[in-house]
């Protein structure tokens, strides 16, 4: 399964990834296509994605800021409104008491009936009052109107009494007191005509206050409550403690104005807290109004939208990367293929140039050698003539034999120089119409005996679609003879030799000569067309056979290529034009231009 997956992956890999053409490396413009591919993808991805990501981050920050400032504004507005309401609540009642002590004299205040009447009227006017009491300057409660019986109670030792005496007004924290019910007391100091003073005290129910606060509560993530300056909860809260418990938030720093801060609560949740120290125009109070909003809850809509945007951005990034990867792969592969084609052409050109220059050099050398060679030949020949014709030394077989060695060597040198010259010279091609079948049969005639003797199986398969071709019969014969001779030398007895010819396109034919002989190592493949390259024993081969074959094929406007594997066999493929005359005319025209 894994193997198959790897196979599939391998087939999907672009050509440049396989690095199959290492041998062309010196001709490639670029060497590391994988690196080009990687760098290309990286650069394109960065160029495409960076702006998208930067814009997204900036957008997020702007939205975050705007949501934050909107939240702060809303919290502050609620805190401010609630502050006004609480302040008004307390101020209204303090003013009522102040009005009462200013309007009604001490005598009436201490008259139980009048006092009860007063309480009734105040309850009617303002509501939320539980009782009223008058306390003498000595701290003794001299009059009381309300549901309890507290006449004669001594407050002289209590802190509020002392503070009210000092400040003329007093607003207490919310506490349980004797009644064991949460309440606030407010008190106003007043002077009697005799110079002594008394205090009018009222007890306020907290329900009204709590109701007032509740009306400002906005949403399930918001909380609003009163705390004392020492951090004790004065009204119940949803998140930060019950009545009289220690507040689960730090006591804020004093500020005469409504303030808003962003912080985390005790459980680490980010919250926005609006607070105000409640202070009436008449008296300071111990209350701090707290309004909190949990950011997470308030930002739910934005967070949901952000998650959608994140998905969209993520998906876009993926699509962009895939498109970039596909485009890059395609482009780099095209580049690689173009470069490979160029490198192949360069390699062929270099080989041609090499062959041409070596050929020229060889021809020059051959020509220079030929004349002294001719002299050696004639001189040795003359010496032999003297022996044979004049019969002076005809009995000396050894001398004759030695002379023959010289003549044989000269003959061999002569063959080489002739071949070299034949390879390099530009001689004309004699074009005639040639039947491939006939040419191949003619060539094989030379090897019939050897094939029989060595039991080599020769298969000839000439496609019937091949017409007669225009070419130089002699040269084609020489080409085929060279290749077939080579093949015979390469195969062992009992091996096969296949000669096939097929049309290639409309204007060409290809002739393949394939043997299953010894083959050759890869390093030799690139050299076999070079002059003097031979793997045969010293003296057995000139190393010019395939060079000449190559030159001849080129003269016939054809191509020759070779494939070989050691111990498996060799395959030579020759492609030739069907209409050589036309090809040559085209060539002349292009040179003419």
């Amino acid at each position: 399964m894994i193997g198959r997956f790897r196979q599939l992956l391998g087939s999907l890999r672009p050509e440049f990834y396989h690095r199959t053409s290492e041998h062309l490396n010196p001709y490639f413009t670029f060497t590391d296509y994988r690196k080009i591919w990687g760098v290309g993808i990286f650069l394109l991805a960065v160029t495409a994605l960076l702006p998208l990501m930067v814009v997204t981050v900036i957008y997020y920050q702007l939205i975050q800021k705007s949501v934050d400032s909107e939240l702060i504004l809303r919290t502050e507005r609620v805190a401010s409104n609630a502050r006004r309401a609480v302040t008004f609540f307390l101020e209204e009642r303090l003013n009522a008491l102040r009005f009462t002590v200013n309007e009604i004299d001490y005598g009436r205040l201490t008259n139980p009936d009048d006092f009860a009447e007063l309480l009734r009227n105040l309850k009617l006017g303002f509501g939320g009052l539980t009782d009223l009491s008058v306390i003498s300057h000595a701290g003794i409660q001299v009059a009381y109107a309300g549901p309890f019986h507290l006449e004669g109670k001594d407050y002289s030792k209590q802190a509020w009494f002392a503070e009210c005496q000092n400040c003329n007004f007093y607003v207490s924290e919310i506490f349980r007191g004797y009644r064991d019910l949460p309440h606030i007391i407010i008190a106003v100091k007043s002077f009697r005509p005799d110079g002594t003073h008394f205090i009018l005290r009222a007890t306020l129910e907290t329900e009204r206050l709590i109701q007032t606060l509740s009306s400002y509560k906005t949403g399930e993530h918001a909380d609003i409550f009163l705390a004392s300056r020492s951090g004790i909860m004065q009204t119940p809260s949803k998140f930060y403690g019950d009545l009289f418990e220690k507040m689960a938030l730090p006591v804020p720093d004093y500020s005469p104005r409504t303030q808003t801060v962003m912080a985390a609560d005790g459980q680490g949740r980010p919250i926005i807290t609006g607070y105000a120290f409640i202070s009436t125009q008449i008296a300071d109070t111990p209350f701090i109004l707290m309004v909190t909003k949990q950011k997470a809850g308030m930002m739910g809509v934005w967070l949901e939208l952000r998650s959608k945007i994140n998905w969209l951005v993520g998906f876009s990034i993926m699509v962009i990367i895939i498109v970039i990867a596909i485009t890059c792969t395609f482009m780099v592969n095209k580049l690689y293929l173009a470069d490979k084609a160029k490198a192949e052409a360069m390699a062929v050109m270099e080989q041609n140039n090499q062959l041409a220059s070596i050929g020229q050099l060889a021809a020059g050398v051959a020509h220079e050698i030929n004349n002294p060679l001719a002299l050696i030949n004639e001189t040795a020949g003359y010496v032999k003539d003297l022996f044979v014709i004049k019969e002076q030394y005809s009995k000396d077989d050894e001398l004759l034999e030695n002379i023959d060695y010289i003549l044989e060597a000269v003959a061999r040198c002569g063959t080489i120089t002739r071949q070299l010259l034949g390879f390099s010279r530009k001689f004309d091609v004699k074009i005639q119409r040639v039947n491939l079948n006939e040419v191949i049969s003619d060539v094989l005639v030379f090897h019939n005996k050897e094939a029989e003797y060595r039991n080599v199986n020769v298969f000839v398969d000439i496609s019937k679609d091949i017409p007669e071709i225009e070419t130089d019969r002699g040269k084609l014969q020489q080409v085929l003879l060279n290749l077939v001779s080579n093949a015979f030398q390469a195969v062992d007895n009992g091996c096969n030799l296949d000669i096939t010819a097929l049309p290639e396109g409309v204007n060409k034919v290809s002739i393949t000569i394939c043997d299953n002989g010894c083959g050759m190592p890869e390093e030799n493949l690139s050299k076999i067309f070079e002059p003097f390259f031979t793997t045969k024993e010293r003296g057995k081969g000139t190393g010019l056979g395939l060079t000449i074959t190559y030159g001849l094929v080129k003269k016939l406007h054809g191509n020759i290529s070779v494939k070989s594997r050691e111990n498996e066999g060799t395959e030579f493929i020759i492609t030739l034009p069907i209409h050589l005359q036309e090809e040559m005319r085209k060539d002349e025209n292009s040179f003419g231009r």
Partner: protein
Amino acid sequence: MKILLVDDEKKFAMMLSKRLALRGIEVDYVFTAEEAMAKVESNKYDVAILDVKMPGIGGIELEPKLKALVPGMKTIFLTGHGSAADFTAGSAEAAYYLAKPLQIDELIEILHEVTQ
């Protein structure tokens, strides 16, 4: 049979003429085209063996001049430029070309052929 051998390679010309002489063929040898033209004026030759490449006038250029002087004289060319077959195209027709180094028997055969 009388032969005129023209080749600028002096030793070669000398040796070849000696070998031909050993085979009963009368040979005069000269080293330049000018000498050859002077030679044919005073002698009658059946065959001229001309080196293709010589300083000044080469064999191919010399051939028509000699033929003008001695109509009917046969010509064999010698070349140091590879095989005769490679050389036949684009030059005088029905001429014989032999590549150096020579096979003496081949030369004799051709000589007999042209003089028949």
